[in-house]
């Protein structure tokens, strides 16, 4: 499964464990800096993951039953019992299955540092969609620059990210001024090189409820220190994305600077990019693309998306490597030159870069960027233009002199898009939102060309003033405030072949950003345990705790993550998941980009 490919590289450097007592002492000393009182435990580099290493999660697999037509109630035994399953493993201090009630609220509650700041600033552009709900509460750019590792507030931050060089020079820190963190960076570097000198590699240190995750990329070290109880693989994936974002800005040829001068100071090269990294880190808590490694499309009528694709294809044939039309983080259409394919992670990093850099909104721009999955060594040139507040066009080329050609391409594209009403359809889709669990059809939709927007039965008149996250306004009597049928609250469906996902809009009771973030964290743990390399991959999982019933179903074709009311009936939940899959199939031409150039890697 392609998802594994990202994390599987870690298994290469598995080697001897680090659990000799002699190793523990110095590391423990180093971490005195973190002012942690609990004993430090070095996790040996075991191949089996940290998520679901032991018993309480049901591990039965339906061996031999490769093909499920439907997920049926008769298969319920594969879900095991309904105890709150616990992805507990030795040394994972915070997460114990039976005590998940207290644990979960402590992990994910509003107490997180981000949560503290949610009231601070209300952005004026709180227009629509979940991402805006988040954006309205989130302040871009680096905060707390005055802090350093001596500050109590800095130490209390729940999730730190650091980039440093292998000589210990700070490159980036999520909180605080990099230069003031030189001592701290040197400590991190000392830990890494201490272990490397022993012919080994440190991947994870657990210290009480803190996890310290390390990622070494040549001369660049990335470290996450977190007490959010996200699984190791998730945090590692986040470090990979941060590294990719840095490569997107500078290319991997930055390594040469360190070859020439090991004491090279990289911070000047990243000046002004705090906002890009902070926006990426913020997206770890709201954008599923960061952990399911797929992209999502703006829902559009098939013909509309085709019209957009046709003009982009026209442009691609004239020597443009990739032509990408997006609305916020959602794809309207994209086209690549022959044999060129774009990795979903590259799309995530590119759209994050464009959306977080305000200057792209002021005027048309021409800027070098690197797609780390396409070619980490070379710059491409990106022509970027916002067609309206949320909709933007990115044209990528290998030629540094192509600006005027790309400008002409944009003029042609814009003309076609406005003539064929694509831009107004995009606006309408932004207002209508995506799939709402309340709209889950009871029966398969009639297959006709004239079906309403995503099979919704609602009157068109109620849509204009409705915000996607604001569904109580809508006349949906039976489910107001309690999600969709059978207690369905939310789902994410990922098409494995298309490398695309669709996520339902958030509705009450998942109305606050904190609740939404908590759900995504739960999905991440679910994702992690499903793809666990030690005991997985699994096909199905059903877990119930005081927050949700979570159901995950993985086949060769798709992955489905669904969240239900914690009191939802299991058999009905399973039936509902089947209906969700049918619904997705019924509207797949609207929610997915079909027939794009092959994305499989």
């Amino acid at each position, binding site marked *: 499964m392609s998802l594994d490919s990202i994390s599987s590289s870690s298994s290469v450097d598995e080697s001897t464990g680090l659990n000799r007592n002699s190793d523990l002492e110095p590391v423990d000393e180093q971490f005195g800096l973190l002012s942690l009182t609990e004993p430090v435990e070095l996790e040996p580099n075991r191949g089996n993951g940290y998520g679901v290493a032991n018993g309480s999660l049901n591990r039965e697999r339906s061996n031999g039953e490769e093909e499920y037509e439907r997920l049926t109630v008769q298969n319920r035994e594969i879900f095991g019992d309904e105890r709150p399953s616990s992805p507990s493993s030795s040394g994972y201090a915070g997460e114990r299955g039976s005590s998940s009630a207290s644990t979960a609220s402590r992990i994910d509650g509003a107490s997180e540092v981000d949560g503290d700041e949610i009231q601070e600033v209300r952005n004026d552009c709180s227009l629509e969609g979940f991402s805006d709900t988040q954006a309205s509460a989130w302040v871009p750019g680096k905060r707390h620059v005055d802090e350093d590792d001596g500050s109590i507030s800095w130490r209390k931050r729940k999730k730190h990210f650091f980039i440093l060089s292998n000589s210990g020079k700070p490159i980036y820190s999520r909180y605080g001024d990099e230069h003031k963190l030189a001592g701290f960076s040197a400590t991190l570097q000392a830990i890494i090189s201490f272990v490397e000198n022993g012919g080994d590699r440190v991947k994870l240190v657990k210290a009480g409820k803190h996890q310290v995750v390390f990622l070494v990329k040549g001369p660049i070290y990335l470290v996450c220190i977190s007490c959010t109880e996200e699984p190791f693989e998730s945090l590692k994936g986040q470090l990979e994305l941060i590294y990719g974002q840095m490569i997107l800005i500078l290319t991997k040829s930055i390594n040469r600077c360190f070859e020439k001068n090991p004491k090279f100071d990289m911070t000047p090269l990243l000046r002004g990019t705090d906002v890009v990294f902070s926006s990426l880190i913020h997206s770890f808590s709201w954008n599923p693309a960061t952990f399911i490694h797929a992209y999502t499309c703006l829902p559009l009528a098939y013909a509309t998306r085709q019209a957009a694709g046709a003009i982009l294809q026209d442009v691609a044939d*004239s020597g443009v490597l990739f032509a990408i039309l997006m609305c916020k983080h959602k794809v309207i259409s994209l086209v690549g030159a022959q044999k060129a394919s774009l990795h979903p992670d590259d799309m995530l990093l590119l759209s994050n870069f464009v959306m977080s850099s305000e200057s*792209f909104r*002021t005027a048309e721009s021409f*800027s070098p960027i690197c797609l780390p999955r396409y070619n980490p060594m070379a710059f491409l040139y990106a022509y970027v233009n916002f067609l309206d507040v949320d909709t933007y066009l990115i044209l990528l080329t290998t*030629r540094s002199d*192509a600006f*005027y050609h790309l400008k002409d391409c944009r003029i042609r594209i814009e003309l076609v898009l406005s003539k064929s009403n694509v831009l107004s359809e995009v606006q309408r889709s932004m207002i209508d939102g995506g799939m709402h669990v309340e709209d889950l059809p009871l029966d398969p939709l009639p297959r006709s060309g004239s079906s309403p927007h995503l099979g919704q039965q609602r009157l068109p008149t109620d849509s204009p003033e409705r915000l996607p996250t604001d569904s109580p306004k809508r006349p949906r009597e039976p489910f107001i405030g309690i999600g969709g049928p059978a207690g369905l609250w939310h789902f994410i469906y990922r098409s494995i072949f298309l490398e695309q996902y669709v996520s339902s809009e958030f509705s009450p009771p998942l109305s606050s950003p904190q609740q939404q973030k908590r759900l995504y964290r739960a999905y991440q743990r679910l994702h992690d345990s499903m793809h666990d390399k030690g005991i997985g991959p699994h096909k199905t999982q059903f877990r119930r705790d005081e927050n949700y019933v979570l159901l995950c179903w993985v086949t060769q074709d798709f992955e489905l993550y669904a969240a239900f009311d914690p009191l939802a009936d299991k058999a009905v939940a399973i039936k509902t998941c089947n209906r969700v899959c049918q619904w997705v199939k019924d509207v797949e031409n609207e929610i997915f980009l079909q027939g794009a150039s092959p994305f499989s890697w």
Partner: protein
Amino acid sequence: MGCSSSLPDRSSGRSTGLNNADNPEGPDAKNLRVKLVLLGDSGVGKSCIVLRFVRGQFDPTSKVTVGASFLSQTIALQDSTTVKFEIWDTAGQERYAALAPLYYRGAGVAVIVYDITSPESFTKAQYWVKELQKHGSPGIVMALVGNKADLQEKREVPVQDGIDYAEKNGMFFIETSAKTADNINQLFEEIAKRLPRPSPS
């Protein structure tokens, strides 16, 4: 070159790179078109100068330019000629320094900006002047601009230093404030006046 073949309307005046407007001696002597590049340290206000000139706006929140932004503005001179500026507003960050030739190659005008409250930015401006003297187009019109002139009380670069340096290097010098719009239009009008005029054929 390269991409010009599909664009017959432009192909006559192009040489290399991002040079759509390197040829003020266009067919029409009354309607000049010139490529202008802004260079200078990050944070000196290059984008603010351009946005004040092109859109009459000033946004005090700093927006870091990525790569380079392209804007154009046409002004009319008293002798009834019009000048269309095709402006490359480059990013001041160090990581883009190596790419500067991409933007200044073939430019008819270079506006080098520093911040009167920052001696470092004045040093950086001198670096750009030298670079353009070495690698810029021959006959390029250069202007030295001390921006943030509204911050008199924080001034660290004396006016005379700017005047002296500009004179030594055959540049036009002006102090501006994008915030108050002071001298912004004058800057571009002065540049327009100094452009080499095509000899009528």
